[in-house]
């Protein structure tokens, strides 16, 4: 390892003295030869893992020229290989880029990181790029003889659709290489890192041998799925399109709804290893700058390794990561995102993630859906009331069963008492155990149902309905009153439009069940006090979570449990602390 380092340094020294770039190239390749001959122990695992994918069994001590020829070989092989790889371009991409853990911890100067710094002053030879892309078998080098001399194009075949490549790069190049050179983006030549990252981002790099210059063409075109309707947030009326996993698509879905230059999207790359693109969207003249500053600070501080979904980002930048409650809103509906943008919120979209993050949000907004604005205000008010009360009923109902049956039998009306006594008379467990048992069964049913393929999923319904519903009661394991209560609370927990909030309600229900088992109604209300205190102390991007209850803003009341007709809602919500509080509402 030390030898390797030292030799690099020598190269640097010699390179600075050297005059002709050609010389440097040869020297550089010499170095490569030497390093290849003395492979460091840390490098081997990486290479080994790569060689598994490679078709030819290249030995580590191969010479650079041999490598070049082999890469040319792979180019010719490519079409067949591409079909395999293009299905999962990202996965292969990651396996190639992931360094061995040892390497990461020791902070070895990997060639990709260090070499551009050494080569900042002079042009980068194509050879060095080639050597950087060793063992990436979908990295393709193609040479074209044009009027401008030899042009080599470099790209990752798995990220680029061949038809697009042909149209945008090959055809112009063959027709008029000079014009093509002018139209394509120029690259900051001295920085090898830029070239490499744009290759791995799916751009095509063109190297004009005579000019010794690099240009790049935007050709990133990974396979995408079509825009479908949202499964998690399906609505009856209103637009049906939902976000997909492609950031560009998602941005276009939002931008075609707000057609004005005020809508800004600031791109950023996060994830130390995955280099995931995110985009922070906001409307410049509405958004609160403090919020924007706050979220940018939090994003800048991120050092997380890899992001596969925006939910990971959400957990990392939330105000209180320990809380049960989601403090930012996830939505997969562009109309919802737009609605929040217009209210002065910030929306974060991420590549490979089919929902976007809205912040800040309040507790209450977890119970709203975009459909609320498409429905008549009366219907909406009714539905919102049901959802909001549903949340509290779903966490209080089965605990109430426990506390009434175990401690406060006096609160039951006489007829109800007889019914309950009758249904409980066969049950051998205390109410707490009974409730925990049946709640867990429901949880398991729900979990099993969501994991199963849709076709088999129906079986779960039958099993749940018949086995649990009828057989358990007949066997005397649970009382049928409880089945009714559990079913109601399960249904109510599904009525929440926000999936994460519905999950939260499931979790805290157990706290209430245990509290009720311990201290009856007193325990329930103590748990209730705890819940409220927790909610009151929560913030979403620094704004109180319980808005509009506390701090009250009368204007927010027009759009709370009762949604007033649209003309009443004259102000943007207090929560977003918008620059323009008043909005056009007539």
């Amino acid at each position, binding site marked *: 390892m030390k030898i390797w380092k030292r030799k690099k340094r020598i190269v640097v020294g010699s390179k600075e003295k050297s005059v002709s770039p050609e010389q440097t190239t040869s020297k550089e390749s010499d170095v490569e030869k030497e390093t290849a001959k003395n492979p460091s122990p840390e490098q081997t695992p990486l290479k080994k893992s790569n060689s598994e994918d490679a078709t030819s069994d290249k030995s580590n001590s191969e010479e650079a020229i041999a490598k070049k020829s082999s890469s040319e070989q792979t180019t010719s092989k490519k079409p067949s290989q591409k079909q395999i790889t293009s299905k999962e371009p990202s996965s292969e991409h990651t396996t190639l880029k992931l360094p061995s853990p040892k390497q990461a911890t020791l902070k070895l100067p990997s060639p990709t990181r260090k070499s551009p710094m050494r080569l900042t002053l002079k042009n980068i030879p194509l050879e060095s790029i080639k050597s950087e892309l060793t063992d990436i078998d979908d990295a393709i080098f193609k040479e074209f003889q044009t009027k401008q001399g030899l042009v080599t194009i470099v790209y990752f075949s798995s990220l680029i659709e061949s038809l697009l490549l042909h149209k945008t790069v090959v055809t112009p190049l063959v027709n008029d290489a000079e014009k093509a050179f002018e139209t394509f983006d120029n690259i900051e030549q001295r920085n090898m890192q830029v070239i490499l990252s744009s290759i791995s981002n799916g751009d095509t790099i063109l190297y004009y041998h005579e000019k010794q210059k690099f240009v790049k063409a935007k050709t990133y075109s990974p396979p995408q799925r079509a825009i479908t309707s949202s499964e998690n947030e399906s609505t009856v009326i209103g637009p049906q399109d939902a976000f997909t996993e492609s950031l560009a698509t998602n941005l276009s879905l939002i931008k075609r709804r707000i057609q004005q230059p005020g809508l800004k999207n600031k791109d950023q790359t996060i994830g130390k290893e995955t280099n995931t693109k995110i985009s922070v969207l906001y409307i410049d003249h509405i958004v609160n700058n403090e919020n924007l500053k706050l979220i940018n600070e939090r994003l800048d501080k991120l050092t997380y390794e890899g992001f596969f979904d925006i939910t990971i980002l959400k957990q990392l930048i939330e105000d209180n990561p320990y809380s049960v409650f989601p403090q930012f809103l996830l939505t997969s509906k562009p109309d919802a995102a737009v609605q929040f943008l217009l209210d002065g919120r910030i929306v974060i979209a991420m590549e490979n993630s089919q929902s976007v993050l809205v912040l800040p949000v309040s507790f209450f907004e977890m119970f709203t859906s975009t459909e609320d604005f498409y429905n008549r205000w009366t219907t909406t008010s009714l539905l919102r009331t049901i959802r909001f009360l549903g949340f509290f009923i779903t966490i209080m109902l089965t605990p109430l069963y426990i506390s009434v049956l175990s*401690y*406060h039998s*006096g*609160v*039951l*009306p006489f007829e*109800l008492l007889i019914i309950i006594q009758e249904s409980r008379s066969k049950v051998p467990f205390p109410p707490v155990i009974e409730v925990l048992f049946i709640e867990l069964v429901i949880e398991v049913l729900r979990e099993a149902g969501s994991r199963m393929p849709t076709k088999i999923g129906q079986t779960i319904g039958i099993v749940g309905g018949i086995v649990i519903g009828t057989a358990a009661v007949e066997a005397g394991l649970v009382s049928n009153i409880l089945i009714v209560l559990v079913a109601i609370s399960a249904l109510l927990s599904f009525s929440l439009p926000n999936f994460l909030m519905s999950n939260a309600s499931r979790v805290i229900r157990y706290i209430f069940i245990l509290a009720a088992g*311990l*201290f*009856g*109604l*007193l*325990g*329930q*209300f*103590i748990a*209730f*006090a*705890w819940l*409220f*205190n927790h909610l*009151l*102390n929560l*913030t979403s991007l*620094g704004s*109180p979570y*319980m808005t509009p*209850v*506390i*701090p*009250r803003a009368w204007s927010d009341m027009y759009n709370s449990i009762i949604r007033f007709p649209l003309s009443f809602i004259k102000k943007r919500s207090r929560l977003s602390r918008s620059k323009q509080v008043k909005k056009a509402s007539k």
Partner: protein
Amino acid sequence: MDVKKKKVLNSYHVVFLVQNIMIGMGLLSLNHTLSAVGYGQWWFPLLFGVVANITLIPMIWISLQYQDDDLFDIHEKLLGKWIGKLINTLLIVYAVIIFAAVIQKYLDLIQVSVLSDRTIMGHLIIFLLLAIFIIKGGIKSLARFCILTFFVTGWMVYYLKWGIADGEITHLLPLFNFNKLEFFDAFKNGYTAMVGYELIMVYFPYIIKPYKAFKHATIGIWNTIFFYISVTFVGTMYFSEWQLEHLLFPVLKLFQAVDLSFIEQIDTFALTIWVFLMLTTVGGYLWMAKKGMDSVRNKNSQFHIYVAAVLVFIVINLPFPMFLAKLYETIFLISFGVILWPILLIAIHSVRKMKKGVVR
């Protein structure tokens, strides 16, 4: 965030803090404590409101003279470091004992009527933990909790409707059917229900608009009076004088009159929801004890909350029930002293000011 900023309480916070720290166990037994004056009790809360408002004036005045200081700092400034610290220590003891008195009364009642086969130990620990949890967020956390408590518990006034339907409006007369001794007795016992607004001297420096604090505290006090008077009014209608005198918690019997088709014994719910009101009351005193310790030890520390809670726990578990009962009774008399204390402070303040003037 909020903990670090000094001025955190806006007008609504002050209103509800004043109100909800006052309402607590006192309301449950208000009809009983006022029973010395018989049916004449129903307008007593009005009198209490006036008295509370008058005694509020010196509190606000002295606090306005030292806008950035709470009661403990004022003591040290006015009375010197050592006497100040001594009095502050006494105030800590006062807060802890009131805390203990209130919580013990409540948990005993819970044990008697709701959870009859449980010792109070379990609830006590959970209750203390929750109080600590609330106070850890600072005074603003308590203030927000107070606002929520108002909405969670305030609707129970509706259930007094049944009491009105069954009651006799004629009981409201005669108005002054008592002698001086009875009046004094009722006033002394009944005014304990008003204790709690003196805490404004402790959280005064946190109020954003100190010059409007008097107005907001007054609104808070009269909110309380509204609840008190509705209870005494309905209680007077619903009960006979004998019942007022002999029922320890008449409000619970009032709730038992409620006749709903799907649920009965509303008093069980009322008593357990009361835990919110208890938490706000107790939270105020816990915070006062914490602030006191901060000032005595010259150190801001969240650790003091735990110390105060442990002290409360110890006091409640002292093995002298007779002594404790006596202590709880006297502590409320002492609280009258605390309410009147600012008058003395004003005297000292003006004396010192005059002396300073002379020196200059």
